[in-house]
């Protein structure tokens, strides 16, 4: 009986151990799987409240370019594996079996590439590739990947060869086999499983690198295929000075693309659709005194307003600001050839103050006459619709019905809607929430009648607080523009305005909106002339 109990205990222990391990390994993966198909998943639900394929649709929609990226990834990966194996198998054999001088140094060389962060290596490789005209070519991408994949392949190949019993080889040699025959019939077959593992590892390593690289801007791949090529060519043709033209080409190309490839683009024979996320080196193309006026401290201080999710948001993981406004600020700093410093605010009002008081050099605001007093605006780069949100049971059906005595409308204090509605609403009462994202919370907490805000923000809030709807249409359209302190003068304002027009014309703004999944905001039409607004 004791025996049976002991055996049962052992079986339970084994089963328990395996179950625990299975949970630790598959639990995280299952979690990911659930998230991939979840439309709504709020605490405290143990599984999502609503399943769907929305996000998959987004991945595979033509504009996302994911399918094309995937095909390119696999193709590049296969090429790199072939290259790595061709180089790594001989090297692994030499390390495992042959006599080598400075063996320790060589081993160290093959360890190093894994030991430091790749980012600076890639930056410096980009600099080399600009000169060699390898940026944006298949060869360039394969070589960059091969350098890192190779290290793994050499180590594993070396281990695989070392694991082959040398006595077997000696036996084969004693029986009269030549070195090549011995290698081909004894060593290689025995080491093959290890070598295949090596190849698979390199392949995986590559796919994950490609994935990481393609993620931030899937639209860029598509950009290569001529959709915006005419814009780019026109833009270059417009630049009279050959140096300027080169810079313009460099800017117009996707990140990391070599300026020298411009000629190929003009012919319509774009290089293969591959790219890296490396930014081009700064190429100051503005006169030094103008740069000094625009960024007097030597760095470009950009005022970023996190209060409007269309312009910027704080990354959930890093807390770093990102979004269309940050992308534009980055591009402008690149154009000036100076370092960018983000000055981040939670509200539009604080962001405006910073630029008005010249604590920041540029900012991103809705164009408004009141603000115009202290700020020089460019033309709009993005148009945003302002909407009203009401409870499902509300008698309000149309935007015109809002302005009635007794109706209380919540707006984000100091936001563009605040300024607009303060002027426009004659009868309704305005309630100011501390910030734009807090509008609906204030609306719910204080039992107001209407919440006013950006369409996307309100739609997100309506999902957060079920039982609410948006009134059809929009009560206003907001023109988002860049601005700088008025004291900087008209030449500086015109330079910024020209930059905004360039960014719209090149499709940079459209791509930034797509990259950050902003819907409902549209790229503003090109301004007729760069005159003051």
């Amino acid at each position, binding site marked *: 009986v004791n025996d049976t109990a002991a055996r049962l205990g052992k079986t339970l222990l084994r089963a328990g151990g395996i179950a625990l391990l299975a*949970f630790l390994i598959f639990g995280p993966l299952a979690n990911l799987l659930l998230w991939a198909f979840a439309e709504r998943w709020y605490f405290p639900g143990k599984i999502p409240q609503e399943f769907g394929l929305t996000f998959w649709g987004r991945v595979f929609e033509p504009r996302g370019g994911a399918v094309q990226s995937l095909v390119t990834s696999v193709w590049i990966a296969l090429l790199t594996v072939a290259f790595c194996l061709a180089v790594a198998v001989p090297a692994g054999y030499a390390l495992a079996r*042959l006599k080598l001088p400075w063996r320790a140094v*060589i081993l160290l060389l093959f360890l190093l590439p894994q030991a430091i*962060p790749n*980012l*600076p290596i890639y930056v*410096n490789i980009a600099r080399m590739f600009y000169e060699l005209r390898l940026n944006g070519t298949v060869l360039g991408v394969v070589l960059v990947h091969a350098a890192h994949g190779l290290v793994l392949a050499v180590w594993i190949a070396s*281990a695989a060869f070392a694991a082959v019993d040398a006595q077997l080889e000696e036996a084969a040699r004693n029986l009269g086999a030549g070195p090549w025959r011995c290698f081909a019939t004894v060593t290689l077959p025995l080491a093959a499983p290890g070598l295949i593992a090596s190849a698979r590892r390199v392949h995986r390593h590559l796919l994950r690198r490609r994935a990481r690289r393609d993620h931030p801007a899937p639209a860029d791949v598509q950009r290569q295929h001529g959709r915006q090529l005419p814009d780019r060519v026109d833009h270059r043709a417009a630049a009279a000075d050959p140096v300027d033209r080169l810079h313009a080409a460099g800017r117009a190309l996707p990140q990391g693309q070599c300026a020298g490839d411009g000629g190929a683009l003009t012919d319509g024979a774009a290089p293969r659709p591959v790219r890296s996320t490396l930014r081009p080196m700064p190429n100051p193309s503005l006169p030094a005194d103008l740069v000094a006026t625009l960024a007097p401290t030597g760095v470009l201080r950009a005022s970023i307003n996190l209060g409007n999710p269309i312009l910027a948001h704080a990354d959930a993981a890093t807390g770093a600001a990102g979004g269309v406004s940050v992308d534009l600020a980055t591009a402008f700093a690149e154009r000036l050839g100076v370092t960018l410093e983000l000055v981040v605010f939670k509200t539009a009002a604080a962001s405006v103050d910073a630029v008005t008081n010249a604590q920041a050099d540029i900012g991103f605001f809705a164009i408004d006459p009141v603000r115009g007093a202290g700020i020089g605006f460019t033309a709009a780069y993005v148009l945003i619709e302002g909407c009203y949100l009401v409870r499902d049971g509300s008698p309000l059906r149309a935007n015109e019905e809002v302005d009635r005595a007794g109706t209380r409308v919540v707006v984000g204090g100091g936001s563009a809607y605040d300024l607009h509605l303060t002027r426009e609403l004659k009868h309704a009462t305005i309630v100011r929430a501390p910030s734009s994202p807090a509008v609906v919370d204030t609306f719910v907490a204080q039992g107001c009648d209407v919440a006013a805000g950006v369409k996307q923000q309100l739609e997100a809030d309506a999902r957060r607080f079920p039982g609410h709807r948006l009134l059809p249409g929009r009560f206003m359209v907001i023109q988002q523009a860049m601005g700088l302190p008025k004291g900087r003068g008209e030449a500086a304002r015109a330079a910024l305005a020209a930059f905004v027009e360039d960014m719209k014309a090149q499709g940079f703004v459209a791509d930034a909106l797509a990259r950050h999944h902003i819907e409902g905001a549209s790229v503003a039409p090109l301004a007729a002339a760069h005159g003051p607004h």
Partner: protein
Amino acid sequence: MKKHWPGLLLITPALAVIAVFFIVPLGLSVHSAFTDKAGAFTLAHFEKSFEFYANDMLFTVAIVLLSCLLIAIVAIAIAGYLTLGEHERTRNVLRWLYRWPLFIPFVVTGQVMRTFLAKNGMLNHVLVGGGLIDPLAAQSLLDWRGIVIAFVWKQAPFVTLLLAGAMASVETTHIEAARNLGAPRWRVLGGIVLPQVKGTLLVGLVLSFVTMLSVLSVPLMINPNSPTMMTVDVAYRISTHGDYAVANALCLVSLLFGAAGAWVYLRHAVKKAEQVS
């Protein structure tokens, strides 16, 4: 006297690739770390690195060493059972099971762990559902523990794979002899098997050590707040400040840590070579 040239011939292409795509950019990186704007030699970038990021350096080394220790324990346990375990089916299931994270890239691991270990993540759901912890006691593991868990989850299978391979080639006669003399399995593992695969374990751990030193995505996604790992600081210097000089200085510091791992391995390799001859 054996000739060197066949070995050199075979290894030259690989060395050339490493030289052009690694050593040269690394040289540029070193140059940038020690040069000021005027092109003169300076240590200012290193002073700044230590002034701002000394804590992060300690944090990085502590995290990576702790992860290595845990990886070693997990790898020895799994590989040991695969070699010495008596229950055939359990061994097969285990062999099938442990490899999965090998196929998951670091960036996906980061994302997976971010949702799994969060306060409202599946781990807490299961612990609460199983009555193991009180719902109010549920806490987020998305700090240094999250990074260690993600690293161990991702790297332990890699070391296990290497280790299990090495253990499988240990002479079974030794193991059987010890078992016949009545030694319990854990003693066979510690006394006979492990000493013979020590080298492989060390290689696996050194590779994991340097890999973890250079992973950006996992710390960025799980714990980007101070103190965090140096890779996050490097990315921050570059993406926010465009400050390649300090970023390169930080990279050189992490390179020194990596070199320490390589040195441990090389010393071991040299010792082994001396024993043989």
